[in-house]
Structures are given as structure tokens and as C-alpha cells.
């Protein structure tokens, strides 16, 4: 089995995995970082979004081997020294989560969205969330949280 090595949340991580291992499996099963979730098997729901070299990626669409040498950031690596990332804080402040299952993917997507879109507006946020499904919130407060965080981060 090939050894795959990458940096996850700033720490080196490597493991012997079967070639078919998906990045999300590597993260959840090899590294035990279970904040990244699996909500579908057709790359539609976005529960699995992480950052690979700074860009939001659905980790169920990528082999672990494809992330060889990459910098991976998961939801667990976001808060620094116990301080929440502004997007995390905004989700809490604006009640952007209920069951919490879609939340890690939503937050990782939102951070990338804010980075790429200075001056976000509601329509853009809603379009950009096309790849993340939430069944609980009706998106109302997720949109609100992302807009608030994007203001905050300007």
C-alpha cells in the first residue's frame, strides 16, 4: 500500500493507505479528525469540504494520494489558540447551525467564498452555496452569518 504524506492543520500526517482511499476517509479514519463529514455519495452535499492548499475542496471527490504533499486544513484546525475564526463565531452568533452536520463544510466553504469575493452580497452567497446542502436551517441564518463574517473580515 502506498504511503501518503501531507500536512494537516499544520502538522505532518502520513499513513499507509490503499490507493482508492479518498481524502475524506484519510482525514476521518486514518487521522481520526471526524469534524469533516460525509453526507452523500455523489459529491453534492458539501459536508466534506476542507481546504487543500488554501482552496475549498470536497474531500470526497479527491483521492488521498492526490493530496500528497499538500497543506490541508480541516474544521479542527481553524480556531487558533482557542480563538474562533470569525466565520465560526458568526455561525454561532447568527444561529447558522442546528444539527451541526453540514456546518463544518459550510464554514470551510464560506471562508473560501469570502476570500475570493470581496464585497459579498446575498445573491452571491446563495449562488456560492449551491454545492452545500443544509436540511435544517433553510439557509436563512447561514447566509446571514456569512455576510456578517465577510463584513467583519474586510
Amino acid at each position: 500500500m502506498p504511503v501518503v504524506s501531507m500536512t494537516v492543520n499544520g502538522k505532518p500526517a502520513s499513513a499507509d493507505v490503499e490507493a482508492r482511499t479518498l481524502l475524506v476517509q484519510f482525514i476521518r479514519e486514518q487521522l481520526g479528525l471526524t469534524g469533516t463529514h460525509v453526507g452523500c455519495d455523489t459529491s453534492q452535499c458539501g459536508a466534506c469540504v476542507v481546504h487543500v492548499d488554501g482552496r475549498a475542496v470536497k474531500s470526497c471527490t479527491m483521492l488521498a494520494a492526490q493530496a500528497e504533499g499538500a497543506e490541508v486544513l480541516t474544521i479542527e484546525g481553524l480556531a487558533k489558540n482557542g480563538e474562533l475564526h470569525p466565520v465560526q463565531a458568526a455561525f454561532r452568533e447568527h444561529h447558522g447551525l442546528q444539527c451541526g452536520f453540514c456546518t463544518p463544510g459550510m464554514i470551510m466553504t464560506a471562508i473560501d467564498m469570502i476570500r475570493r469575493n470581496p464585497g459579498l452580497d446575498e445573491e452571491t452567497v446563495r449562488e456560492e452555496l449551491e454545492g452545500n446542502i443544509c436540511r435544517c436551517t433553510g439557509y436563512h441564518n447561514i447566509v446571514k452569518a456569512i455576510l456578517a463574517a465577510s463584513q467583519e473580515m474586510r
Partner: protein
Amino acid sequence: MSDAASGEGIGQPVRRKEDYRFITGNGHYTDDINRPRQTFAYFLRSPHAHARIKSIDTSAAEAAPGVVAVFTGKHVANDGIGGLICGWTVTSKDGTPMKVGPHPILALDTVRYVGDHVAMVVAETLADARAAAELIEVDYEALPATVSLSSCQDGKAPQVHAEAPRNTCFEWELGNKAETEAAFAKADRVVKLDLKNNRLIPNAMEPRAAIGEFDKGTGIYTLHTTSQNPHVARLVLSAFVGVAPEHKLRVIAPDVGGGFGSKIFIYAEETACVWAAAKVGRPIKWTADRSEAFLSDAHGRDHLSHAELALDKDGRFLGLRVKTIANLGAYLSTFSAAVPTYLYGTLLSGQYDLPAIHVEVDGVYTHTAPVDAYRGAGRPEATYLIERIVETAARETGIDPAEIRRRNYVKTFPHQTPVIMNYDAGDYAASLDAALDAIDYKGFPARKAEAARRGMLRGIGFSSYIEACGLAPSAAVGSLGAGVGLWESAEVRVNPTGNIEVLTGSHSHGQGHETTFAQLVASRLGVPLANVEIVHGDTDKVQFGMGTYGSRSGAVGMSAIAKALDKIEAKAKKIAAHLMEAAVEDIVFENGVFTVQGTDKSLAWAELSLAAYTAHGFPSADIEPGLKEGAFYDPTNFTFPAGCHICEVEIDPDTGIVKIAKFVAVDDFGTVINPMIVEGQVHGGIAQGIGQALLEHGVYDADSGQLVTGSYMDYCMPRADDLPSFTLGFTKTECPSNPLGMKGCGEAGAIASPPAVINAVTDALGIREIEMPATPARIWEAAQAATSRAAAE
């Protein structure tokens, strides 16, 4: 209120206690849990909607790499394990009980829907289990399937169960038939409508999962599972399925990623995992992938109805008669028989003073996945029917849709409907007025004209909904066929240091109980929110509970806590009286401090808590040491949340695309503990309702019975860009039937919104009917037909 507790009490939008773990990736959902030496299960499922199993050969699979065991229905039956049950018995109008076919955990000789469970492979890895399942040889004799609701009872359709001739499980009725006929006989006008309530697939974002374990030393089974009601699961698994005695089975529902009804039920996979764990002597883990969830989670809705409304010359409603065929799927699921009967027929009076109602419901079997409660459960189907026919009546009589509703509202309470329910409180005109204001109803004609200038069709639709929540008085549901009582339990444990654990039989899977329940405790005892811990979801910790569904956790679950808090306060006062050498009657408890009336003597909460456990010098006949009280609360009535939702849409006739221009929801939930959380519940419900109206549809191929909408590529989930932001408002009449005045808010959005949307769409198009989901294709066709009609006129 003390400083510490201010801003944290009842009515405050307190930020949620549970959020920190979820936003940092530290939640513990079932699939996040791994047990030492665990194995993995994979279920081989039927590819046929209906087939006889001639033989199953598992030998190659058993010999495959990594395989620990392979189980079929025979193993389960030989072990004396029973089938799954329906916990509610419905009686037909001829007095016979519903006709129930067997529901084995793994199929014995027949499979009855695509996805039905045929065999379970347990292996070292999921990949091994999956690969081995492909080596199982099942010799099927494929049989024709019954899919269509309209023809399943024609006597020619293939039988799903031999026990149920004409695929009819029950023929149920409710209401006053003779009076209804008399009302129609004297009516000035009768409005008729045929309606379909589309089949939905719940799709909580966390798929179902289970880890079954068996401890050889103690004989104790443990099941971690995605459940909305772990105690009910334990009861069913022990008393009916016979997996293990109740005291030897622990069920834990940890963080659960949404339920919407689909995680109430006791399913085959979870049952098989806990049963087989003892067979293989190792933990067995199973997590559904989304495709399995589509196939095997209980679906929702799926009704075919004909409704008639009788009116007098002033547009007053005289009577309603309804005939509904309700799809139950291939097997009865845990509560499925109750959903299209007692949760549906009983709500057909809507918000209206309707003197005569008669409803007939046929519950039928088809070769499709079981159908059971999905957010709203019966009440959305009732609301859709009544609010569609009322809107149609408004159009046919030329009475303004707001006015016809207002004219017919129930205005005095209590109000006994002809269909069991006794409405205890409400002010329906108040929510209508607030909604009319919020949407600027007066400005609608101008907005419609402006849209027309842009070539767009604008429409407005109303929905004045009512639901029955707070399930439910045990005696009442017992008399209607429920196998359980629907009370709730709570235990309040005060620790010696004064902080508090509250054990509740409710279960939170997104509702935020850890926050709202703690708000109640904090404000009652005057302690900081941070000092209150809510414990739920583990049968080893909480003695018993009925779980969370039917918007019952506030009205019933919190009422149980309130009752336990009363007892805590009573005992604490006794202790305080002893310590301060005063009479109990003179003790005042406010903001977490005990004082003796008319003196400066006082005792803080923490001092009293400690004293309760040191128990020094307690008169032992009078006061036991400790401070812990439990309560069971059985509601005296259902609760009746109600309100008015108004939807305004704009349709592009060239593409058939609907844009929701504005959605207003004004709800009366009685007392609101945390408005932020309540609003979130409404948002989510509305999104699901809009999903039903415009996007979602669970479709089976009419001939083959294959599920056509088996993934997110085919089943259209509402996404952020399908929805607007919502405008919410609240009115308030307190519920007189529970100590907190709460009504429940979890389902209102999903119940109210579909008719509001469809009324708006049909208004925009100037048509009478359109089927849900009103997809762009359906709307485009209707728009084209409407345009050519207009041209011809």
C-alpha cells in the same frame, strides 16, 4: 433576576451552548465513534420491487477475504427474533383491525421493495463486506409490482401482503357523516378539488448509522444509533423484536444530525447490528451511504385525495368531505398507521368553524419503501388540502382570500371540531392581520402590474394553518390506538456545589435543547446558564422518555422539567426553613436566594445545595438528604400552534422558473423560550415546505418499481439559491394546557408553506390546479396553456 442569569432567561435569544462543539468539529455523531475490534456491516438489498426468493447461496461470500459472518433472514428467524412492528393500531370503519403483513428484519421468502434487506455481511472492513456481498447468489423470481396509488386497490394489482386483500391495510373514517351529507344538501355552492400530496424523502444530512455491541461478561447489549427516541427504540427492540431484555440493552443516541421524523423509527439495519453483535462477539458498525438512505429511510406524505367543500351564499363553510388514499409503502413502519389517520383527519377543520366534516382514508400497501412521519406528519397533508380548497372557494365565489378565511375562522375558545380536536386558544385574525401588513397586501396589485410590465407573472397565496402538537395526552392517544403513552419525563439533579444536571427524555438533534431547557432551569433557579447541563439520549442515564417528534419537546418535555423544578423548589424551601429556623411558609425563593420573609436572613443557592448533601442535623423523619427530583408530565390536551403564511411569487412564463419574491410567516407558538432558536425552526420548516411545493419528489418507476430519484442528482433538495430570506413575525396566545403556555414550533413551517406557495403559483398563472412539485416544466406547460386560453378568449 440575578446578574448572572439576566439575558439568559425565558424569552432571550441566548446563543446556543451546543454550538461550540459543532463549529469546531468536535461533535460526536454515531459514525464518529469507533469501538475496539469493531467490524463493519453491509446490507445486500433487493434490486427488485417484488420478487420471490427461491434460494440464497452465501458460501462464496463467507469464504471471501475479511468476512466474519453472513446472515440471512433464516438466521434471524431461527434465533427467535421477531419482525418490526407498527406501534399504532388503526381500526377500519367495519370494526376490523388494520391488516398487517409481516415485516422481517432480513427478508425470508419475499422482497417487497427495491432496497428491502436480503442479507447482512459482517467483515473486517467496509470494503471487504461490500465486495463479499457481491458474491452472494440470490435466485429471485421477479414478480410484477404494485406502484400506483390510484390502481393498487383495483383487485388486479399484485398483492403486497396476502393478509391485506386489495392491498388495503385499513379503511378508516372520522367525523359526522350524516350531518356532512345534510350540510351538502343545503349548500348554495360546492367546491371540488383533486389533490396529490407528493412523496418526499426526508434526507436528514447525517445518514442513519448504528454500532451494535455485546458484552459477554455482563450480557449487556449496547446500541449507538441515530435515534430521535432511544428509549422507544429500546422498548421495541426488547419487548417486540426480542433482541435482548430491556434491562440488558442500552441505547445511546449521541449527537444526531437531523431527524425530521425519519429517525423516530426502528429499522432493520440498526436492529440487525445489535442482534448480530452477540453472534460475532465483536462490535458491528453500519453507516448508510446516501443511496441507501434514499432507498430505505421511511419516506413521507404520498396521498391522493378528493375534497369537497360546501358553502352557503355568504361564503360560510357548511361542511367538508374528503376521501384520501394514503400510501403506506411495502411494510408498516413504527408509527405509519397513525400518520394518515389521527394526525391527518383530526386537523381537517383547519382554523375554521366547520360544523360538519367527514373523512375517509384508505391506507394501502405498495411495493415501495415504507412511508411514515416526516416533518409535520399528516398535518401538512391536512393543511394542504384545506388551504387549497379554501383558496379555490375564494376564487370561485369572488371573495377575497383573506376575507373568506376571516369570515370562517374559529373565534371563540375552547372550540370542539367535528374531528376530535378541542382547540384551546388562538387568535387567527391577529396572525392574518400581521401577515397582511408584513407582505403589504394592499400594495400587491401595483406589484403585480409592475411585474406584468416586465413580462412576469406575479401571484400571492395564503395559508392559515393549524396543527396539533405536544403529543399527547396518553389517555387520548391510547383510546385512538396508540401502543404507548405520550408523556415525558425529567429529573433534576442538584449537585452539592450547586450546579445542576437535568435528565430529559426528549432528544435534541438540532433543536437546541441544551440551551432552551437550560434557560428554563436557569431562570427558575436563578443560576447561570453555564451551571446547567442537559443530559439526554442515553438509556443508562435517563430512566425513560418518549423522545422528540411532533413538536413535543417544549410543550411536554419542558413541562416535565418545570414539574420537577416545582418539587426541587418545594424541598429546597423545606431545607432552607430548617437551616434558617423559620416556617416553610415564610421562605421566599427569588433569583437564586432563599430569604425569610420580614427578616434579613438569607441563604444562597450554592449554600443550600451543599447543606442538602451535608445533611447535618436534618430532622430525618422530615427531610431526606440530597436534592434530586423527578417528574413525569402527561399533557392534558394537544397544543394548537397556528398562524398565517403568505407567499408572493414571480414566474417567468418563458422558462417556467418561479422566484419567491417574498415569504411572510406569522406564527402563534404561545410562550417562546428562545426566539432565535424558534425562528431557526421556522426557517428550516419553510424551506422543507417550499421544497415540497416546488422541488422535491420521490418517484418510483410505475412498472418496475425502481426508485428513480435515488440520489441528490435526481432528488431536488432545496439549495440556498432556491430560497429567499424569510420575513417572520409572532403573535401570542398562551397555551392553557401546559404550565409554560408553550405550543411547539418545529413543524409549522413545513405544514404551512406548501399551500401558500401553490396558492401563489396558481394565482400567478390564473389556473385552478397544479401538481406538487410545481417544477419549471409543469409551470411552463401551465403558463403556455394559460396564454393560449387567454388568446382564444
